[in-house]
C-alpha cells in the first residue's frame, strides 16, 4: 500500500496561488491537531514556507460537540516568505456545528467552507446551542459551502477492514485530510509513512486510515463539488536542509545545544504548567545528552533546585508560565545576589491570576523586569518566532555565563505551540561558549568569591575544588570577599554593581537593526509579535509608506543605539499584546513620546490589525 498510484494526480484544472490559509476545526476528539500537523509537514516538504497556529480548548476534553470543545488548527503555506499563520481564511473545514459557528467569522468572503454534513443533526445543533442548522440559514451566504457526508463516506470506505463503526468514525479526519490534500495537490507519501509508523502494531487501523485518506482524495477528484484544485509553488528559502519545528521544541533543543556548546550537563528544575510543560516533556526525552530533569513539588522548589545545580556547575534552567513565575520571585532574587548563571524561562499566557491558560499574551514583561523585592535588575531576552526560540536559548546562556547572572527568557503560548520551517544549523559552525572555573589551590591564599573580571563577573568556583571553599547567601555581601556586610557604602556599591553588570550586557548584544525606511514611523516590537509586525511593515512599505520596523531581541538591557534610533523617527508605534508594558519602559528610559497599539484578547495580532494601526497612527500625527 501507500504507492502514489492509488492517489492519481488530479485531472481537474488547477489554479496556482501564492499562498493559502486553511483552518481545520472540529471536536477535541476529532483529531484536528493531527490533521493540521500532517498538512503542515507535507506543505513544508513541498518547499512552501509555512506557519501554524493551533488553538486548543481550555478543557482537556470538553463535552463532545460543545463550543467549549472546539479544537482548531490554522496553517498558512506560501510560495513566498511568511511570518504568520495568516489572517483571513481561504478555506475552513468544520467537523460539526460548534466548529462552524465559532470559526466562520474568520473565513474570507467567497472562501471555501467544507462541512461534515453528517454531524449537523438536531443533537449536534443542541450541543452547539443552536436553534437552527446554520448550513440551512443565511449565515453561510457569501461563502462557497461544500457539504460532505464525511461520516457516511468514511464508514463506506473502511468497510473492507471490518473495523467497528466506532473505530471507523475515528478515521473521519483522514477522509478530510485526503480531501484537503487533493484540493491543494499535496503529496500523501509522508502521511502514509506516518500512518504506517504510528499504527504499525494495529495494521487494520493503518489500513482503515489509508482507505479514508484515499476516499477523501477521490471524493475531491470525482464529485462535481470542486471545480479545480490549487497549487502553491515552492518558496525561495535560503538553501539548506529544513525541518518543521515548534517553539517549545526549538527552545528545548536550543537548551541542549547551549549545554553541548559550553561542555555542561543540562539540569531542568520545573513544575508542569500550560503552556510551558512541553519543554519539560521534550527535555526529559533526551537523557542521553546528559540532561537531568527534575519535576519539583512546586515552582519555588523548581527554581531553587536550579540554583543548587548552578552552584554545582551545571547549566541550570527553570521553566514555567505566569502564575508559576510569580512564585519564583524570591528565588530569582537570591540567584541574582548569588550572581550564579542560570536561566528562568517564562512561556507567557493570558493573565492576571490563572487567567486564560491556553491563550497567548505578552503578559509578563513587567513582572519579569520588576517583580522582585529590592533593586533586582536582570537581563531579559525574548524569542520572536518558533524557530528563534533555538538561538534565544543559546544566546541567553552565553550571556548568563559571561556575566555570571541569571537570565530570563520570555516566550509565549503563540510561538510555543506554533511551528515553522527551521533551517537545520551546521553544528560544527556553532560558536562554542567558553566557561571557566578557577583551579584549586593549596597555598592557603585567600580566595575572593566576589572578585570581578572586566564584565564584573565573579569566579564560578565549584564545590569540590580544594582551597576555594566559600559561602554564599542572600544577605548583602561585601564586594570581593562575599562576606555578609551591613556596611552602608558597600550596599550602595553592590546595588550599583549589580545594575552596571546588566547594563554592560548591552556591549555584547550588538546594535539594534532596523528594517525599512529611515524616517517616518518606526514600529518597535518584541517577542512573539515579530511576524505580524514585520509582515505589516512590509506591506505598508509595499504601499510606499514611510515606515520601519525595529524588533527587540533583548528587552533588558536595550541595545546601545536604541535611544538615538528612536529619536531619528517622527513617530514611534509600539504594538503589544498587553496594555503597553514595553511602551512604558521605553518612555521612562528614553522619554520618547511613543504610542501603543494594544490588543489583549488572548490572540496574536492579525497582520491587518497592525497595518491599520500603522496607517491610523501615521495619519493621526
Amino acid at each position: 500500500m501507500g504507492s502514489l498510484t492509488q492517489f492519481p494526480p488530479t485531472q481537474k484544472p488547477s489554479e496556482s496561488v501564492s499562498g493559502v490559509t486553511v483552518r481545520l476545526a472540529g471536536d477535541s476528539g476529532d483529531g484536528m491537531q493531527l490533521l493540521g500537523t500532517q498538512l503542515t509537514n507535507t506543505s513544508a516538504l513541498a518547499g512552501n514556507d509555512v506557519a501554524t497556529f493551533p488553538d486548543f480548548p481550555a478543557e482537556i476534553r470538553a463535552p463532545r460537540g460543545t463550543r467549549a470543545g472546539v479544537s482548531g488548527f490554522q496553517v498558512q503555506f506560501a510560495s513566498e516568505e511568511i511570518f504568520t499563520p495568516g489572517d483571513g481564511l481561504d478555506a475552513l473545514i468544520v467537523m460539526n456545528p460548534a466548529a462552524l459557528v465559532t470559526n466562520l467569522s474568520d473565513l474570507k468572503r467567497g472562501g471555501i467552507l467544507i462541512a461534515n454534513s453528517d454531524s449537523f443533526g438536531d443533537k449536534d445543533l443542541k450541543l452547539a446551542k443552536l436553534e437552527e442548522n446554520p448550513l440551512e440559514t443565511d449565515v453561510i451566504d457569501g461563502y462557497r459551502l461544500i457539504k460532505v457526508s464525511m461520516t457516511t463516506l468514511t464508514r463506506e470506505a473502511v468497510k473492507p477492514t471490518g473495523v467497528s463503526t466506532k473505530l471507523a468514525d475515528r478515521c473521519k479526519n483522514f477522509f478530510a485530510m485526503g480531501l484537503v490534500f487533493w484540493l491543494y495537490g499535496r503529496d500523501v507519501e509522508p502521511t502514509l509513512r506516518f500512518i504506517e509508523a504510528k499504527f504499525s502494531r494495529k495494521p487494520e487501523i493503518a489500513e482503515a486510515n489509508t482507505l479514508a485518506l484515499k476516499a477523501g482524495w477521490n471524493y475531491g477528484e470525482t464529485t462535481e463539488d470542486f471545480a479545480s484544485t490549487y497549487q502553491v509553488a515552492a518558496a525561495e528559502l535560503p538553501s539548506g536542509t529544513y525541518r518543521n519545528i515548534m517553539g517549545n521544541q526549538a527552545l528545548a533543543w536550543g537548551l541542549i545545544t547551549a549545554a553541548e556548546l559550553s561542555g555542561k550537563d543540562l539540569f531542568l528544575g520545573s513544575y508542569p504548567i500550560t503552556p510551558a510543560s512541553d519543554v519539560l516533556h521534550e527535555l526529559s526525552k533526551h537523557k542521553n545528552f546528559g540532561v537531568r530533569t527534575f519535576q519539583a513539588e512546586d515552582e519555588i522548589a523548581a527554581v531553587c533546585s536550579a540554583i543548587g545545580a548552578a552552584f554545582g556547575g551545571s547549566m541550570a534552567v527553570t521553566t514555567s508560565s505566569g502564575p508559576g513565575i510569580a512564585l519564583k520571585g524570591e528565588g530569582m532574587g537570591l540567584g541574582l545576589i548569588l550572581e550564579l548563571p542560570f536561566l528562568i524561562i517564562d512561556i507567557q499566557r493570558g493573565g492576571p491570576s490563572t487567567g486564560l491558560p491556553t491563550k497567548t499574551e505578552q503578559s509578563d514583561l513587567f513582572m519579569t523586569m520588576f517583580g522582585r523585592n529590592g533593586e533586582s535588575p536582570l537581563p531579559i531576552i525574548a524569542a520572536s518566532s518558533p524557530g528563534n526560540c533555538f538561538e534565544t536559548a543559546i544566546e541567553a546562556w552565553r550571556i548568563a555565563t559571561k556575566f555570571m547572572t541569571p537570565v530570563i527568557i520570555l516566550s509565549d503560548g503563540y510561538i510555543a505551540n506554533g511551528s515553522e520551517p527551521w533551517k537545520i544549523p551546521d553544528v560544527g559552525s556553532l560558536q562554542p561558549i567558553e566557561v571557566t572555573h578557577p583551579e584549586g589551590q593549596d597555598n592557603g591564599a585567600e580566595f575572593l568569591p566576589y572578585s570581578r573580571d572586566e564584565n564584573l563577573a565573579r569566579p564560578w568556583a565549584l564545590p569540590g575544588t580544594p582551597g576555594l571553599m566559600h559561602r554564599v547567601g542572600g544577605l548583602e555581601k561585601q564586594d570581593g570577599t562575599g562576606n555578609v556586610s551591613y556596611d552602608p557604602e558597600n550596599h550602595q556599591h553592590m546595588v550599583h554593581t549589580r545594575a552596571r553588570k546588566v547594563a554592560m550586557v548591552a556591549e555584547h548584544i550588538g546594535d539594534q537593526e532596523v528594517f525599512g525606511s529611515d524616517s517616518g514611523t518606526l514600529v518597535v516590537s518584541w517577542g512573539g509579535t515579530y511576524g505580524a509586525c514585520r509582515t505589516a511593515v512590509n506591506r505598508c512599505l509595499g504601499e510606499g509608506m514611510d515606515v520601519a520596523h525595529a524588533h527587540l531581541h533583548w528587552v533588558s538591557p536595550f541595545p546601545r543605539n536604541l535611544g538615538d534610533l528612536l529619536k531619528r523617527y517622527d513617530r514611534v508605534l509600539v504594538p503589544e499584546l498587553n496594555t503597553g508594558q514595553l511602551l512604558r519602559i521605553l518612555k521612562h528610559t528614553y522619554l520618547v513620546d511613543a504610542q501603543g497599539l494594544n490588543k489583549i484578547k488572548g490572540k496574536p495580532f492579525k497582520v491587518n490589525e497592525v497595518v491599520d494601526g500603522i496607517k491610523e497612527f501615521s495619519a493621526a500625527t
Partner: protein
Amino acid sequence: MSTDLPVLKPADFASDQDVRWCPGCGDYSILAQMKKALPDIGSRPENTVFISGIGCSSRFPYYMNTYGMHSIHGRAPAFATGLKSTRPDLDIWVITGDGDALSIGGNHLLHVIRRNVDLNIVLFNNSIYGLTKGQYSPTSAVGKVTKSTPVGSIDRPLSPLSVAIAAEATFVARSLDVNAKHLIATLKRAQEHRGTSFIEVYQNCNVFNDGQWDYMKDKATKEEHTLMLEHGKPLIFAGGTKGIRLNGLNPEIVELDGSIAQDDLLFHDEKCDSPQLAFMLSRLRVPEFPEPMGVLRDIDRPIYNVEINDQVASAKEKSGAGSLDKLFSSGDTWTVA
C-alpha cells in the same frame, strides 16, 4: 573518602567568620560537635557543602570552612536536591530550624525525604522563631505564650519525627545540643546512611525560649524522661528501672522490678522495613512516656540522586551519547538547493 590526605582537625572546618549567636545559645554546641564529627568521618572541606534556610540556626554555614549556601527561608532541601542530583560526589548537609523546616518549608521537607536524596538534614528544634525574636513555631506546645500568642498558642504542634516517617524517611534520629558524645555519634550515623538522613536536635534558645528541654537535661529528671535507643536492645530507661512493652498496638511502661522478663519488653529494631515501630517511638512524649534519643530508623531504599544519574547513564548506553546532528535531522526533513 580519601584517607591518603592528611588527617584533619576540627579547627580545619572552622571558617574565619565571627560566630554571631547569642552567648549561651545551644547552636554553639551543635557547631562544635559538627566540627569534631567531620574529621572522624573523613570528610574533606572541599567536598562538603552546608546548605541552610533562614533563621539563627541557618547562619551555621558561615561558620564552616566548607562550601556553603545560606539560602532562603524554608527552601534549603530544594537547593540541596538540585545540587546532589548533579553533583552526587559532594557530601551535603542541610541545616534548618523548626520554623524553617516545618512552617514555611514543610512541603520541601516532605518531598526531599520521600525522594530519599542522599543528604543529611539537621533540624535545630528550639520550639521558637529565634531570628525574628520569639514567635511560636510548629513545634511549640499548645498554650505557649509568645510575642504572637499573648494568650497562648492554639495550634497543635507537629512531631518532626512523625512527619519524617510518614514522608517515607529511611533514616530518622534525635539528639540533644548539649550531649556532645551522643550528638557526634548521631551525626556520624547520619553521614554513614545512604539516602536522606533526618536528625532532630533539641536545641536551647536561651533568649526567647530558655529551658525548653531542661527536663531532658536536668540531672533530676533526664534519666526518667530519656529513652536511649540501641538497635536490638530492649526499650529500657530510668537507669534500668523501667521498660516499655507492647499492649496490643500501644506501648506501656512497666517497672523492671524483676516481675517482668526482659524478653517481654519491646526490642528496638532500626532496620525493620515497616515504619510501624519508628512511628510509635516518634509518638512517645513526656510526661506519659520518656522521649527517644538516637536512631529510630535506618533502612535502605533506592536513592534519588543515584536513580536520576542511572537513567542518564543507561540512556547513553541505549541510544549512545547524544548527537545534535542526529537530533536535528530526526523526523521529516527537506532540502532547498
